[in-house]
């Protein structure tokens, strides 16, 4: 058993005594003076008065909120909750200690890369006894399907994260490695963007090391590991989707790297090659920056993985060398804290050097002698899952009741290989801004490394997480709380490289795949257009209806109201058979304006609009986004039941907002393929809206013209009609204006004209797949307008169905790729 104790290295033992002592103070030394590297910033923040503190905190929050307005939508749409919060006071790392830490992080990356290459290959580590065989065999994180695969590009790791805490003696020590999809790298840049502008004078005078180079290298490294292929190569950034807590960070990072942000449904494997489904067909993908958990990557390889999500066949494409995945599947195995105690021994034996970064005392409990010693002093430790499958962990053993403690000890004895004990550490404390005051708070620094072809490169900065005093850092939630920027003064570095937060737009333009619209995005935009038009129809129709609701209705008004209600039914805003009794009318209208759970209501339509828009977030401008965010606020139900005039005010505001969006779409969006689908979606829906209204009008008694006023008003065509006819509306004249008239932007024929024009500009071979049928179908529709005879109700219905068929053909041809088009 002496062997055992040696193999779980105890180089950390020396750390244990002082890590548990008093927290190290980042800013002041034991005699109460500011530490040298904090002199300038320390004085500055000490001079802030309460108002200044409040103001700078509020600015930071505002800037982060601006970057991440998305989050409100996500929480509403069942996505993640709050964004990270930013504490604008950075953590300063002394320039004298940084080179040692950087060398330690680089060595650690080299070491973990070597460990993974061996474990997924010859496994000599197990035969040499440097890693106990059970550590690999009992781990669900060790992917059987990755065994024996030579990763494309020759590397398992591209980027890694490493959580560091500073011990009471001032030594930075490793708390945890992140080797699968290290979160936080995008956020580092968001934070840097905000803090460097809020504290620009300090940022310049301290000569803070810039981060741009690291991100440029990340892009070029990813491109360097792609399988060799003649022409332009394509890389995508794969996110699980907008419900993931880090989605915004993924979108931000993808934009920064200039790689299209895609979800599993955007990708398909054909003939063991990976493709992106785009409007122009299937686009070959050579590399993937992967932010998906190993278990959700490929439903074909992983039993019971996420109900069919993932990309079937992607592992086979990787196994056969057709695509590079970074980090590779299975790399996450090295995130296990169980591996930590064995790393120093491997480093010594394989590299002939001592491990440079000490680590927080950590024990894998499978080995009996180790277990005995740890269980004797369990209160000193935090109990962690060895491989991340215990729902109750981590827990701080000092807080366990005697009975709970006994229970855990029994569980550990039963399957000791599932548990790791890590010392209950007290991290160092740094000044943190809390409202109007500054307090000392514990911090953990997440550093990042990149595995370039010339060896590891370390990010001169990182993300500091701020915790609660007295809470073990292993227990801090990973997706919540305050974070800080990390500054390292580096007078020697080249400060001219200001690539900082600038996304590589020029480069993006050179990147062909970035210009293409993935099919899913086009589909979402198509629906954004359709939803926006549905909301507009509902808004205008409800507005004209409400104008006829009031306390003392005259006969004429009664008639108008019932005409409007007929139109509301005809437009399917309420089920057709709904009987509307006068006393309930206002209640029903209010529900349609404010009640999200009412089918067809404006809030429920807004919800679908936002869901579709959220998924296409990286294709929409920030202004468009802000507009979408406000929509929800406008229709949010007031605390007390609104009056008619309040409801009308809400609808007026909404009409103006929808006009603003249409204007933005017309004036500010590039006429790319994405825009084209948004436009076509909008036009299809507008034509359908008008057809619904006309059908109701045509069905009514020919002598009853009361429907025609609200129809004209809903179609925003009252002024034109009056200018032309100076009379009470007649059906034939109304049909002429809103069905036939090609000059009226609200007419059906106008919509069809726009659709025909846009379709002819769609990318892809015009003779391929359904394209000829789609054109023929449209042409058929168009022919209806040359016949000057007004359609009857049945014909209006037939034209609607024909439009729906057209929408379905668009879906089949462009979105679902039921016919393969590879190029």
């Amino acid at each position: 058993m002496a062997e055992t104790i040696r193999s779980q290295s105890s180089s950390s033992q020396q750390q244990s005594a002082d890590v548990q002592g008093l927290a190290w103070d980042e800013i002041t030394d034991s005699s109460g003076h500011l530490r040298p590297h904090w002199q300038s910033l320390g004085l500055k923040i000490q001079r802030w008065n309460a108002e200044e503190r409040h103001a700078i905190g509020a600015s930071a929050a505002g800037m982060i909120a601006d970057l991440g307005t998305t989050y409100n939508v996500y929480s509403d749409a069942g996505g993640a909750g709050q964004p990270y919060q930013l504490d604008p006071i950075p953590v300063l790392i002394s320039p004298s200690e940084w080179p040692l830490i950087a060398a330690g992080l680089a060595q650690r990356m080299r070491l973990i890369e070597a460990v993974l290459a061996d474990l997924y290959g010859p496994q000599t580590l197990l035969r040499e006894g440097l890693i106990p065989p059970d550590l690999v065999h009992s781990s669900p994180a060790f992917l059987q399907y990755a065994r024996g695969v030579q990763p494309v590009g020759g590397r398992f790791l591209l980027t890694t994260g490493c959580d560091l805490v500073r011990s009471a003696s001032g030594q930075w020590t490793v708390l945890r490695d992140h080797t699968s999809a290290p979160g936080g790298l995008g956020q580092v840049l968001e934070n840097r963007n905000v803090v460097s502008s809020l504290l620009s004078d300090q940022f310049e005078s301290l000569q803070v090391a810039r981060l741009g180079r690291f991100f440029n290298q990340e892009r070029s490294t990813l491109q360097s590991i792609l399988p060799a292929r003649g022409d332009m190569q394509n890389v995508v950034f794969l996110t699980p989707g907008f419900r993931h807590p880090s989605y915004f960070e993924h979108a931000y990072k993808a934009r920064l790297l200039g790689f299209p942000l895609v979800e599993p449904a955007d990708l398909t494997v054909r003939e063991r090659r990976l493709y992106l489904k785009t409007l122009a067909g299937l686009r070959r993908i050579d590399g993937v920056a992967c932010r998906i958990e190993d278990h959700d990557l490929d439903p074909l390889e992983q039993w019971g993985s996420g109900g069919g999500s993932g990309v079937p066949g992607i592992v086979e494409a990787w196994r056969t060398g057709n695509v590079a995945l970074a980090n590779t599947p299975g790399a996450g195995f090295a995130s296990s804290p169980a591996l930590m105690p064995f790393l120093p021994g491997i480093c010594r034996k394989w590299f002939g050097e001592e491990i440079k970064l000490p680590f927080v005392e950590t024990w894998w409990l499978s080995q009996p002698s180790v277990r005995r010693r740890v269980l004797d002093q369990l209160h000193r430790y935090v109990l962690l899952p060895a491989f991340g499958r215990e729902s109750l962990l981590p827990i701080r053993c000092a807080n366990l009741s005697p009975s709970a403690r006994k229970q855990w000890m029994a569980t550990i004895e039963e399957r000791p290989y599932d548990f790791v004990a890590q010392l209950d550490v007290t991290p160092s404390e740094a000044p943190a801004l809390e409202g109007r005051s500054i307090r000392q708070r514990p911090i953990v620094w997440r550093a990042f490394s990149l595995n370039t072809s010339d060896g590891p490169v370390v990010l001169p900065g990182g993300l500091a997480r701020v915790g609660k005093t007295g809470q073990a850092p292993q227990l801090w939630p990973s997706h919540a709380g305050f974070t800080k920027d990390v500054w390292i003064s580096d007078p020697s570095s080249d400060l001219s490289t200001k690539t900082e937060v600038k996304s590589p737009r020029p480069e993006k333009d050179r990147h062909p795949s970035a210009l293409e619209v993935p099919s899913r995005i086009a589909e979402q935009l198509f629906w954004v257009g359709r939803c926006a038009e549905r909301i507009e129809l509902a808004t205008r129709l409800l507005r004209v209806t409400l104008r006829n609701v009031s306390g003392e209705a005259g006969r004429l008004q009664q008639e108008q109201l019932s005409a409007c209600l007929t139109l509301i039914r005809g437009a399917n805003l309420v089920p057709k058979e709904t009987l509307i009794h006068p006393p309930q009318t206002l209640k029903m209208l209010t529900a349609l304006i404010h009640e999200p759970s009412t089918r067809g209501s404006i809030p429920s339509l807004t919800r679908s609009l936002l869901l579709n828009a959220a998924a296409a977030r990286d294709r929409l401008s920030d202004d468009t986004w802000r507009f979408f965010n406000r929509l929800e606020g406008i229709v949010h139900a007031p605390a007390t039941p609104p009056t008619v005039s309040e409801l009308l005010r809400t609808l007026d505001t909404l009409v103006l907002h929808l006009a603003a969006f249409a204007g933005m779409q017309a004036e500010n969006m590039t006429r790319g393929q994405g825009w084209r689908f948004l436009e076509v979606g909008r036009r299809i829906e507008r034509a359908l809206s008008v057809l619904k209204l006309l059908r109701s009008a045509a069905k009514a008694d020919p002598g009853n013209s009361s429907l025609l006023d609200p129809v004209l008003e809903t179609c925003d065509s009252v002024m034109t009609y009056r200018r032309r006819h100076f009379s009470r509306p007649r059906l034939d004249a109304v049909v002429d204006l809103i069905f036939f008239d090609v000059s009226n932007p609200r007419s059906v024929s106008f919509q069809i004209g726009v659709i025909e024009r846009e379709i002819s500009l769609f990318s892809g071979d015009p003779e391929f797949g359904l394209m000829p049928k789609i054109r023929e179908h449209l042409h058929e529709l168009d022919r209806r307008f040359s016949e000057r005879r007004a359609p009857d109700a049945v014909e209006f219905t037939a034209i609607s169905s024909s439009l729906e068929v057209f929408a379905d053909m668009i879906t089949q041809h462009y979105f679902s790729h039921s016919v393969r088009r590879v190029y």
Partner: protein
Amino acid sequence: MKYRLTHRTTYLYEGSVTVSHHLARLAPRNLPSQHCPWHELEISPSPVSRGVHMDSFGNSTAYFEVEGKHEKMQVIARSLVEVFPTLHPDPLGTPPWEQIRDACQVEKLTPGSEAGAFRFGSPMVPLGKSFAQYAAVEFSPGRPILAAVLGLTQRIFSEFKFDPRATDVSTPVSEVLKKRAGVCQDFAHLMLACLRSLGLPARYVSGYLETVPPPGKVRLTGADASHAWVSIFCGDRAGWIDADPTNNVLPSERHITVAWGRDFSDVSPLRGVTLGAGGQTLSVAVDVMPVAEMD
């Protein structure tokens, strides 16, 4: 014994499928006790791409994709296999089971301890006290491993009812233990859970079984199905020994081994992901024909 194997899997889809991806583990392994000189996979519609690799357990794994609208897919695996009789050691001459358990707890991997990889929980075989308790009667202190394994095989055989309606592919093994009923896959998983909960290395084996026709009647073609049993590591000398709790036998010439792994999820004969279909109906027919009969 020489056999001609045909394993026919037919999927009928409710809608039409446009693209599908599949992994098949249908090729019999080559082993000291088994020789497979010929194997072919016939797939219709014809796949656009296919390839074969060895998985980490040494099973031959075929990958293929089918593209274009289809409402039906059929995979027919045909093989010729020769199985040699297995000479089983005297159960009482095998080492005490605790010795096997302890020999797996090593700090260094040695050729003799590699079996240790198969003594942990896996996706379909969780470990737990209830399994260890169920097996404890047979695994009395010092009992030779093979004797205890035979005892456990016999117990599962006699205490559990073979009932295809009692369980499906997703029934957890703890449920099987409670219900005392299931099919061969359930019994294999249960036995694995028992053995591994005691710290013993055991793996899941998928394959076929030649069924004996009732006296006087012709063999029912297609009545057979794919089968599953377990294999237990019984020490360096005896090596891995198979046991079939569904039939209460130690497999020999009448069991044909296709693949092994930690549980069914590692070796499912055919797994696919389809795009575009609603529901699907699956039918499987297996023929295990002794070659002599065909001549």
